[in-house]
């Protein structure tokens, strides 16, 4: 039978030295080729699971940030109406807004700026003078003392009939739904990957135990109990699970951090950017570690259940 230890210079050999606690027990006559294939499969599955989790985390965080941004700003739209001076309406609306508590600042978009916003639909060549282009006022909300937006909208409409207030609620809600949907899908994908990992371990454990049937029989005859024999197989496969998990999770972590670094390079690595990256990366590291721990627990449990079921049959 071949030596079960991985060559010293291989990735597996290095992992052996880094993690002596997970050293494979010699009583299980493992097949190094099968073990490496299994570690590779678990590594790939962990990599996919970690990427999925990181993507879900990124999306959720970004959606939350957008929602906060959208909620901190509302827009007042003034439509040109026959017989009314839009400039007078803007001045009146601006005065009302400035006098309302809970509003930190307002900005009146110039006609050209409003036209610029419509450019994708109307084109730049269109004569804005001849079109009844609505005018916009962006309003920044004081997040600590937000105003009653329904009341502000009513006051505005009463004073300036051409004005309407858009608090972006519809968009915020849709963004929230989209974020929730993505999070649910990511969670589902994560569950599928974890289940696949468990099934892979189940089949591998059963195969290994069938291959070691004679050894199991001998161990029984010389006085080993099921717990001892199960422990040998369980620790062997748990070790493989951890190796695969660390390998896949580590590569996923490096990839995510590398991508972030790559995105930041055009702006230069300023200290604030680095500290922001370190903060976000702490969450990513925790998430990846969580995935590794989850994969390890699943591999440990799957091998334990399989070993006990199979050992009963073999005995």
């Amino acid at each position: 039978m071949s030596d079960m230890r991985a060559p010293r210079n291989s990735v597996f050999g290095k992992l052996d030295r880094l993690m002596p606690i997970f050293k494979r027990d010699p009583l299980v006559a493992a097949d190094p080729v099968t073990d490496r294939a299994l570690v590779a499969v678990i590594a790939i599955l962990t990599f996919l699971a970690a990427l999925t989790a990181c993507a879900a985390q990124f999306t959720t965080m970004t959606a939350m940030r957008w929602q906060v941004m959208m909620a901190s700003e509302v827009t007042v739209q003034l439509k040109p109406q026959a017989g009314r001076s839009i400039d007078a309406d803007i001045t009146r609306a601006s005065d009302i807004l400035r006098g309302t508590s809970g509003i930190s600042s307002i900005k009146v978009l110039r006609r050209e700026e409003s036209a610029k916003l419509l450019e994708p639909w109307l084109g730049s060549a269109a004569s804005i003078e001849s079109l009844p282009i609505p005018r916009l006022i962006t309003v920044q909300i004081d997040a600590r003392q937000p105003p009653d937006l329904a009341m502000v909208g009513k006051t505005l409409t009463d004073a300036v009939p051409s004005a309407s207030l858009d608090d972006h609620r519809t968009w915020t809600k849709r963004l929230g739904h989209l974020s929730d949907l993505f999070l649910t899908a990511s969670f589902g994908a994560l569950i599928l990957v974890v289940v696949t990992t468990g099934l892979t371990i189940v089949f591998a454990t059963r195969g290994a135990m069938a291959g070691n049937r004679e050894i199991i029989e001998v161990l029984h005859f010389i006085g080993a109990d099921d717990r001892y024999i199960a422990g040998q197989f369980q620790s062997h496969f748990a070790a493989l699970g951890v190796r695969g998990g660390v390998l896949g999770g580590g590569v996923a972590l490096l990839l995510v951090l590398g991508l972030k670094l790559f995105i930041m390079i055009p702006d230069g690595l300023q200290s604030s950017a680095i500290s922001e990256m370190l903060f976000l990366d702490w969450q990513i590291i925790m998430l990846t570690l969580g995935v590794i721990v989850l994969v390890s627990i699943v591999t440990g449990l799957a091998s334990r259940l399989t070993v006990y079921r199979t050992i009963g049959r073999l005995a």
Partner: protein
Amino acid sequence: MQAFAYRSVGELVRFENVGLRYGVGAETLTDVSFSIEPQSFQFLTGASGTGKTTLLRLIMQALKPTRGTVVLFGQDTSLLEKDGLTALRRRMGIVFQDFRLLDHLTTYENVALPLKVQGRDELSYRAEVMELLSWVGLGDLIHAKPPVLSGGEKQRASIARALVAQPELLLADEPTGNVDPSLARRLLRLFVEMNRSGTAILIATHDLGLMDQIDGARRLVLADRRLYSEANDV
């Protein structure tokens, strides 16, 4: 030859009207009744295919009887739980006909295995394993793995493994079947030594010459699916 009548005081093994059938065919063993006393020495003999190995497998609980009662160390095996079975097996040493050494372990590791599976710390048994290996003439081969050992060396390693936990009962299936007469005599002396130190021995063999070397050893003979005891029963 006379039909065997068992005694019931302090036996290590007791069979009462044991029958074994594989599948739906005729019984391989019929109405087997016998017992093994502590510190006794017996041969189990019979022509090839008469069920010597099957009888040993019944004792080591690799097989369950179709009928009858098997009592080991005073415990009815039909009532045994798994933990109880493990405890009984730890009181036996087994020498398999085909050695059953683990090829990926060294000679030392193979011999030390029964102590290791009991959860004993290696420091507590290393010296006694080394002493036993020297005693069976394998002191220079502790790092060798079974694939490079000769038949005789494997046989001695297998015997050492069976003896290392100082069992009360040693079962040996054709232990001299793969070795030359000179080595067979040496191995037999090993069994006699063990017997003198308190281990009951049951050797399954069809080698009459081997049996003749031990005076007073009981002979259990399997023939026509039944077990008989020869006249020189002790």
